[in-house]
């Protein structure tokens, strides 16, 4: 057996890291779905989001990865834990992760898995990697596009955030 054939038998470091991230996502998402304590579900979700951010970094989508950590873990996961800690009934006593919709949920997610498998095997994934600029220039290009080509959506986004802000104010206050 020649040396390249030998090395094909062993996983590359990249593959090892990918499998580790995939395992992290699988285990923690099971915790997020099945743990009997709702607070532990939330912590499992945080770890799952971290794993997905890791996958983004492996795909060299640094900006998406950083956004994932900043927005999903930094803000949304915090909000979810706040919501749990604010709700007395959820906080005390064990909540069951299972309900009567378990079977229907299992069927739907099984079907969804089949669809995903079909996409993975049917789509002709390109083998040649496009020549992309390095991370920082790529993000700068994105920023320049925000304020030139996509100016209107960008300003609309500010309005959307403003509406969300005032909406949050209306909903979250008792008065």
């Amino acid at each position: 057996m020649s040396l390249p054939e030998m090395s094909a038998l062993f996983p590359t470091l990249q593959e090892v890291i990918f499998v580790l991230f995939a395992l992290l996502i699988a285990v923690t998402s099971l915790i997020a779905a099945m743990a009997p304590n709702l607070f532990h579900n939330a912590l499992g979700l945080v770890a799952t989001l971290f794993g997905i951010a890791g996958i983004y970094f492996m795909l060299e989508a640094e900006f998406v990865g950083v956004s994932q950590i900043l927005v999903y873990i930094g803000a949304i996961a915090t909000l979810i834990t706040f919501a749990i800690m604010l709700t007395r009934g959820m906080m005390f006593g064990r909540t069951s992760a299972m309900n009567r919709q378990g079977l229907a949920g299992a069927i739907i997610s099984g079907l969804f898995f089949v669809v995903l498998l079909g996409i993975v095997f049917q789509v002709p994934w390109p083998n040649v990697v496009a020549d992309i600029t390095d991370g920082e220039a790529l993000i700068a290009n994105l920023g320049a596009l925000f304020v030139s080509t996509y100016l209107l959506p960008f300003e609309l986004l500010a309005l959307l955030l403003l509406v969300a802000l005032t909406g949050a104010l209306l909903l979250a206050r008792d008065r």
Partner: protein
Amino acid sequence: MLQNYLFVLILSTVALIIPVAAIVLGHFLGPRRPDPIKTATYESGVETIGDTWVQFRAQYYLIGLIFLIFDVEVIFLFPIALAFERLSLLSTLAVVTFVLILLLGLLVEWRKGALEWE
């Protein structure tokens, strides 16, 4: 690409090893003579009052929501900051408008007293 993250890998490994080593070494080297006072649960050196699982005030949620909005704003401003040197005047004005619109939101929060801690 991935080589750039080698330091992250090394740092995470070190960050994992040091606390685990501290706990494992402490477990094996430290003498173990428990008595009721030593095993008592404490919080910041003071005995805990009530349950650890307390209900939090609803105002935290509002502050969290406001934080989320401005967090998203930062995410969108960051790439523009990287492209700052090649922005035209119109683009710069667009960024200023973006920030001003969100500043309006902050003013509304302020006027409504959402930032006051009750």
